[in-house]
């Protein structure tokens, strides 16, 4: 290891005196299978929130409901207000210039713009 790296101590030492179980004991090398961590979706599922009274706050029911305001649409490319919608690409646009641009965009870019507002076609 280079001197300046050692100097800066950016690398976490393998053995730490204050630990009761060291990392290399807990997660032995080459046994990656024991390290599976539940993702948030699975954690929430395992919580079984439906077994508890609904007035008790939990991670799921404190989520904010959808907005009551009418949702104003903005142009996917420019960010201006978008009165128009292109049925071919599903993009929203502000004016004719942007429309021209949209029609000249390759599909990959269209999908990336749509992905920004979670409207892209996702193949599973």
């Amino acid at each position, binding site marked *: *290891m*280079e001197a*300046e*790296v050692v100097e*800066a*101590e*950016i*690398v*976490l*030492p393998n053995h*730490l*005196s*204050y*630990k*009761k*179980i060291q*990392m290399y004991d*807990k*997660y032995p090398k080459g046994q990656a299978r024991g*390290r599976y*961590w*539940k*993702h*948030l979706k699975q*954690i*929430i599922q*395992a*919580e079984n929130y439906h077994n508890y009274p609904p*007035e*008790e*706050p*939990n*991670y799921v029911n*404190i*989520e*904010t*409901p*959808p*907005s*009551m*305001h009418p*949702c*104003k649409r*903005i142009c996917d490319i*420019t*960010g*201006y*207000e978008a009165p128009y919608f292109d049925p071919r690409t599903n993009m929203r646009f*502000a004016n004719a210039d942007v429309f021209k641009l949209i029609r000249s965009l390759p599909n990959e*870019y269209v999908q*990336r*713009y749509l*992905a*920004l*507002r*979670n*409207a892209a076609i996702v193949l599973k």
Partner: protein
Amino acid sequence: MPFISKIQRQSDYSLFPSTCPIVIDNGGSYFRIGWAGETDPRVIFRNIVQRPRHKITGETVTIVGDHDPALLKYFDCTRSGPRSAFESNVVYQFEIMEYILDFGFDRLGADRSQVDHPVLITECACNPVQSRSKMAELLFESYGVPSVAFGVDAAFSYKYNQRLGICDNDGLAICSGFSTSHAIPFISGEPVYAACCRTNVGGYHVTDYLKQLLSLKYPHHMSRLTWEKVEDLKMEHCYIAPDYASEAKLFQNGTKEAEEKTRCWQLPWTPSPIEEPPSEEEIARKAALKEKQGQRLREMAEAKRCSRINELENELKGLEFLLQQLKHVEENAVPSFLSATGYVSKEEIESAVAKVTQSLRKAKGGQVESEEKADPSAAEKYALIDIPDNMLTPEQLKEKRRQLFLKTTSEGRQRAKQKRFEEELERERQNKRDEEKRLENPELYLEQMHAKYKELSEKVEQRKRQKTNGGHTNGNNNGSGGVGRGERLNAAQKERMRLLTTAAFDRGKGEDTFGIKDEDWQLYKLMSKDNDEDDEGPDEDEAELARISSRLRQIDPTFVSKSESGSTAEVPRFRPLSKEDFQIMLGVERFRCPEILFRPNLIGVDQAGLDEMAGVSIRRLPSKGQSLEERITNSILMTGGSCLFPGMDERLEAGIRMIRPCGTPIRIIKASDPILDAWRGAAAYAAAMQFPQQTFTKMDYYEKGEDWLRRYQLRYTI
């Protein structure tokens, strides 16, 4: 970067008694650790872990937090990017969490056999019990922590500001963090989680939105738009528009105000060196070089010519000597004498002499006049031609055939010469006529010439196009319009192709009647490859075109031949990259990106924004009452890193005013330090005398079980 990590190792760990709690603010973006009762955390670093390989030794190492990128050059970071223990705002990856805690305790100076201090660590509101228990387990099992307490960062921040007198006993904390935003109401100093709400939009989404938008807008500079850089841009330039629609309108109309609001990031750019025209000296030098080379070639040619002349002269001398000798030889001894020299007759030697002299003259640079000279002697030269075949010997017959051939070729040559001469005359005459016309009315003449030139060039062009591009005449003369095989064939080839395919298809159909009619066989002629030579037509046109263009060039200095201009236009001209190509403009993006905090549906999150969250939260309160609601709206605290955007408070106030009844007192306050207040609040809380009652030990945890841990909640007012 406004947030500067503090990762100096602390040396005073042993000075703290084991009752002094360690306070950790485990935030989505930053990890802060320090001692209870202090005003600032001791160690701050980004809550990320990288596990790159060392480039030389190949061992996998763990690097926690952000470091000087210059030090990371020794590691191969391509295979593992920075990873976080969080998903949304919940810790789920406890291996990464453990590395982070390791590093945090290490930098705090821990050096004993275990971390012998109570720990207060923050978590999100309504943290799933699985995450909470795993965290407790980790702290107990791995570090030997005696007792643990969990609290919510937004609540600590509110309590801290309450202590500072910034906000009241009843109020609302709007905390916009890294990956989520919360609104938590407080009644008599205690958070009411039943009434809180969470929207899954935070600073991460703002940065990501900005990054995506910029990389879509500037695909060439994608590599420059790193996460860290975009985060910097966001913190430096983004603001919240008081009214998005009218702000966007400003930009749409291209007003001066919008121009002033547009920020520009100039990427490093060095102008490409301008090609200087070669200097006088250089031109002279090049000309001299060329001249020298020409001289050498000329000398070589001269030497060659000399040696050839020499050779020919020698040969001539030899032949003349032979003739001379032949004179002395008697008539009957001639064949035997000649057999030694390789010649058959005297005539042959003479003709050889003539040939050699002619070529010698040619080599010496004299005109070839032999033809004219030969003319008068044509009668004797072609002596045998007029004599009928049957009167000749076989040799004479052969000779006659030769003479016949010679005669026809020389005659043909003469005819061609005549024709050329006539053409020359004709051209001369035409030029004279043109000149006359021009002198009569120069403008009209020029115009006519131009018209004629245009017409002809179009004609030639079209023919060329037809040849290369089949019948494809849509003005697409560069030929890039057509793809496919058919487009590449010319008309004749196409026709051939058609014949071949029809012939191939006809084969299988019904009775084979091919060959019954004689015309059928013509098909093969049409199919044959040598059929696609073109007629003389275009050549004439081209010649005429060349004549006109040369003429035009003479009389019109502004004239540029189309083929020349066309060829320059066809080469795609590369515009030299300018300074503007290396600029990243931030216009609408400056307020479009933070706008998602107020309108999450812009990025497809179907939840209410910050302003509406206040209303939702108040609606959810279990105890209603106008006075309580008014007290709450009179003390709305903004905290969390995403509250730092300029214009946040005005926008929030306007938004909340819209959804609250008319005349409601609304007071929006920014936290004293939206980023560090959570840790400070927690540190102050942990320093209180009653803090140990809020913690739980490993024994408690294992005795009381998960259900108890689920309901575990700090009392913030102690």
